[in-house]
């Protein structure tokens, strides 16, 4: 396209309009600065300036064992959620590539249906299902597992969060798996590899970019979860977001809450930066295909 441009009659006119693309993005950028950039800057400043200037809020955050426990727990819960999502999504996404169009449509619908109901309502459903007198507990009881507690425990939070985040794992995984040439598996088997070996040496490595992409998205989204842990969790499954909310709304400690928020924000962006090369190489591969 660019090679053609100098010869088109309107090229000179277009050069004069070079600022236009930037002007088109200006309204969106302006709103972004006002309602995203400025608020985040405010939080960073407050974490450094309230009650007085200095790093005291960060010293407090990293010097208080409770905070570190919650920070660690946030990571552990997110890791569990990611693991559950990978384990459940892998066979599911694989099946999506292996079935006929009718069954595939049904499988896709099952992934999309959770999005049809509001997120808060879905969490309510989990409260209903996981409560002590709920369906899952009565099933467990009749199977002989008495006294299993799900609501207000870490397990309950992981179950609820993984269900919300599962589609974000299935969809990227499916888009990668769809592009894998299944004849490669047949080739491996015709060369004498057993199905399991063919899977581990051929299929799994080819599908890993999808696993990475989905796992990164799920983990990052899980770190910032607020509603699900607040409703399904108890005091021993508090995540960082809830702590931020308590500091700001209940204790009016803007400095401390802000510092926690900044820790969460920085963690998220560091993870994204670490993941970017992986994502980019995946893009390039997809482009080559």
């Amino acid at each position, binding site marked *: *396209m660019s090679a053609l441009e100098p010869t088109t009659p309107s090229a000179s006119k277009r050069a004069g309009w070079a600022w*236009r*693309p*930037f002007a*088109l*993005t200006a*309204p*969106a*950028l302006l*709103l972004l600065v006002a*309602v*995203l950039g400025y*608020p985040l800057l405010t*939080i960073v400043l*407050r974490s450094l300036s309230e009650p007085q200037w200095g790093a005291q809020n960060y010293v407090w955050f990293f010097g208080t064992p409770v905070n570190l426990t919650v920070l660690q727990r946030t990571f552990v819960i997110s890791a569990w959620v990611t693991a559950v999502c990978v384990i*459940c*999504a892998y*066979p*599911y996404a694989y*099946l999506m590539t*292996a079935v006929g169009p009718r069954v595939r449509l049904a*499988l896709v619908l*099952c*992934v999309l*249906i*959770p*999005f*049809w*109901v*509001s997120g*808060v*309502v879905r969490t*309510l*459903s989990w*409260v*209903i*299902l996981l*409560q002590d*007198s709920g*369906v899952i507990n009565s099933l467990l009881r009749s199977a002989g597992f008495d006294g299993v507690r799900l609501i207000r425990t870490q397990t309950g939070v992981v179950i609820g969060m993984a269900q919300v985040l*599962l589609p974000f794992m299935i969809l990227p995984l499916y888009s990668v798996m769809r592009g894998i040439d299944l004849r490669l*598996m*047949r080739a491996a088997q015709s060369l004498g590899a057993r*199905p399991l070996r063919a899977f581990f040496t051929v*299929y799994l490595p080819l599908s890993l970019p999808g696993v990475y992409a989905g796992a990164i998205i799920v983990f990052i989204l899980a*770190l*910032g979860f*607020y*509603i699900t842990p607040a*409703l399904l969790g108890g005091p021993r499954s508090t995540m960082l*977001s809830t702590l*931020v*909310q308590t500091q*700001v709304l209940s204790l009016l400690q*803007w400095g401390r*809450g802000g510092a926690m*928020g900044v820790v*969460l*924000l920085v963690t*998220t962006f560091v993870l994204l930066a670490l993941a970017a090369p992986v994502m980019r190489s995946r893009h390039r591969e997809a482009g080559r295909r």
Partner: protein
Amino acid sequence: MEMKPFTRVVLGLVCLLVAIWLVAPTLVVVPMSFNENKSLAFPPQGFSWQWYQNFFTNPDWTSSFLNSLKVASIVAVLATVLGTLAAFGLDRMRARPANMLRMLMLTPMVVPGVVLAIGIYAVYLDAHLVGTLTGFVLAHTILALPFVLIAVSANLEVFDRRLETAAASLGAGALTTFRTVTLPLILPGMLSGLLFAFATSFDEIVVSLFITNPYLKTLPVQIYSSITRDADPTVAAVGTILLCATTLLIGGGMLLLGRERKGRP
């Protein structure tokens, strides 16, 4: 790939369980909404319409529902306009600045909800925007913008710009070209962006919880406070109504699409 029958059965069973896990929580609100008692214990007892009645008559519920509709409609239009303009701008920029700006505009998707929420809350307290329509619209638009940008950009990527040159060479002005060539071709992207923006706003809870006040509540905020306050099955009725509405919309859309596709050769 040939699978052994055993592998096939195990795979099918695992996927069935995952599918149930995905869908069951969506449907569990339906029986709960007809509960006779004011409780959220499962299984529900008896049958009554009282929670639906409560939803349509209790001003707490009706006003929050109308607020959500109002906010989401404005957000959908605003985000679609801003997002489409931005997508066009990025499409016509050189790759490097375009990629940087695109990343910047997608950040609302990855900023943890609570961090954004306390930031916006801090700014809104100073600007007296807490509990105002403007406040809700601005915050939700930021969150909806990435979805519009993604949808319209995807459409522009497959859009052949020589069509615009062709229209111009046939004597069409910039505006005519846009109206008769560009707009019809990117309309699907804009429409799906509009839909996503509406859904994002209608469903937004984290930021809304912070910038709400007793005078202006949106539906998710009302649902959340109802869940944390007491076991009121009205929430289940709301969930069921939303589920039916979305199913009708999506079902209708799919039927229309199917018919259109069939009509074409």
